[in-house]
């Protein structure tokens, strides 16, 4: 597991909001929901599609291609057609800065 990396400022992202980010040659999606920040891999485990363009409903993100849903708080799969969790990355906020620690792939 990597060290924490600063990826954004709190003010960069509205609440609710999401942003696609490139971190250490990986694509992740940062969410700002109900005052909390979450980060998951930009990967739908169903067919490898991107989640960043999906609709955010509370703390669930839907894959725009086939509708699989994931919980942004932990990467857990919520609904078919995906059956496997996506990767969740640990987030911390210090002052106005948002940091992420990338999980192993």
């Amino acid at each position, binding site marked *: 597991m990597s060290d924490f990396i600063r990826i954004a400022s709190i003010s960069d992202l509205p609440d609710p909001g999401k942003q696609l980010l490139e971190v250490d*040659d990986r*694509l992740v999606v940062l969410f700002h929901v109900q005052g909390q920040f979450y980060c998951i891999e930009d990967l739908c485990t169903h*067919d*490898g*599609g*991107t989640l960043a363009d999906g609709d955010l409903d509370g703390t669930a993100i839907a894959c725009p291609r086939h509708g699989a849903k994931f919980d942004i708080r932990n990467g857990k799969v919520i609904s078919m057609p995906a059956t496997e969790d996506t990767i969740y990355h640990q987030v911390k906020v210090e002052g106005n800065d948002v940091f992420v620690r990338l999980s192993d*792939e």
Partner: protein
Amino acid sequence: MSSTLEVSGFTQASFDAFIESRNEPGWLIDLRRQAWKSFLEKDLPARTEEEWMRTDIRLFKLDRFGIPTASDQAECSRPLLLEGVEVAGSNKSANGVSVDTSFADSVASQGVLFGDLSQLANQHEALIQKHLFTRAVNPHFDKFSALHAACWTTGTLLYVPDGVTVELPFHSLASLSGGTDLSHLLVIMGENSEATFLNETGSLHENDGGLHCGASEIFVGKGARLRFVTLQDWGRDVWHFAHQRAIVDRDASLQWTVGALGSRLSKANQEVELVGPGAECQVNGVMFTEGKQHLSYHTQQHHAAPHCRSDFLYKAALQDKSRTVWRGIIKVDPGAQKTDGYQRNDNLLLSGNARADAIPGLAIEADDVRCTHGSTTARVDDELVFYAQTRGLTKREAVRIAVTGFFSKCWTALPLTVSEKHLVKPSVAGFANVNNSHLVEFAMDTGCFSLRKETIRE
């Protein structure tokens, strides 16, 4: 020794400087300028496009690369396909700059042309103007084809005149170590000619990066025969974008063997168009991926004339979290009656995290044809492994045998059968660790066997 100098990014200024530095005929400069205009107008492919839906290039940064402008003493990767093989000619480039060409006088005296395309373009204008970006590769197909057509710096030309047979194979090597390779391959086979071409790409070190944006154009004239072997073994951080198209005329045949092993991400469009009655082509492809590699092959076998035969077989073995995408189309024009087309893709998943997408397709506009296709994807059979273990093999040895057997089917599908010696050798040497370096040996052997006269026609 100085390193390769490159203009940063594909900018208007770098293109203008590039054009200024070229001593090329007017038609070629015009062609480049048109392609450059197309390059500027086009966006990088979006993931909403069917071809790119499963191939994510958002981490690809085009502005990190540029047009190769000069190179001194650029070191080439080791040419694998040359080992133990006597050739009629060999042409090498490194980081997009021509390095070395050899060509046997005895072959040249038959009227055969071979060597660096950029040099020969000045000496054989009419021949090259007739074939370069005319009927085969469309420079305006996408941003990558346009970039290549505008900025290709080097490449290889093979021209075999009518009725000439060259027994020894020709060889070309494009090497890449962190730079940009925009090499172009042009093969023109005259009527009733015959030749073999070994085309390979590689990097100095296994984890080298770079950009390859290339194209291959192959013309097989009436009654001609071409055996064409492609081995792609770029470093594991190379971005590979290629357009490969062959046009096969009446009663001609093309046997195309592909080994795809390297690169971080590959997106190749491979098309064969059969334009004369009786033309036939056979394509056998082997992909072996590991780590996070992503190889995407999009093939098309286009029947534009009646009584033609095409047979495509792609096999992939995937380890770790690697991924392959194969999308194949058999396209049959309205007048192409009595077409016999077949396409197949088999995938062997060696890990639970690997993924293979297979998308075969038919687009048939004639009503008297036989076109079939199929695809399989599976893990190594547990029962097979268990049985092998009961006979004293370790699990690893059992898997190795299964993988070897999986690929051997690719070669038994060839009309040219292989001597027992050449089938046995790869099964012994190959896959000792089920990794790519050993597959290179395998591809080397299988690539070379079709050149040898130990093969017989069934």
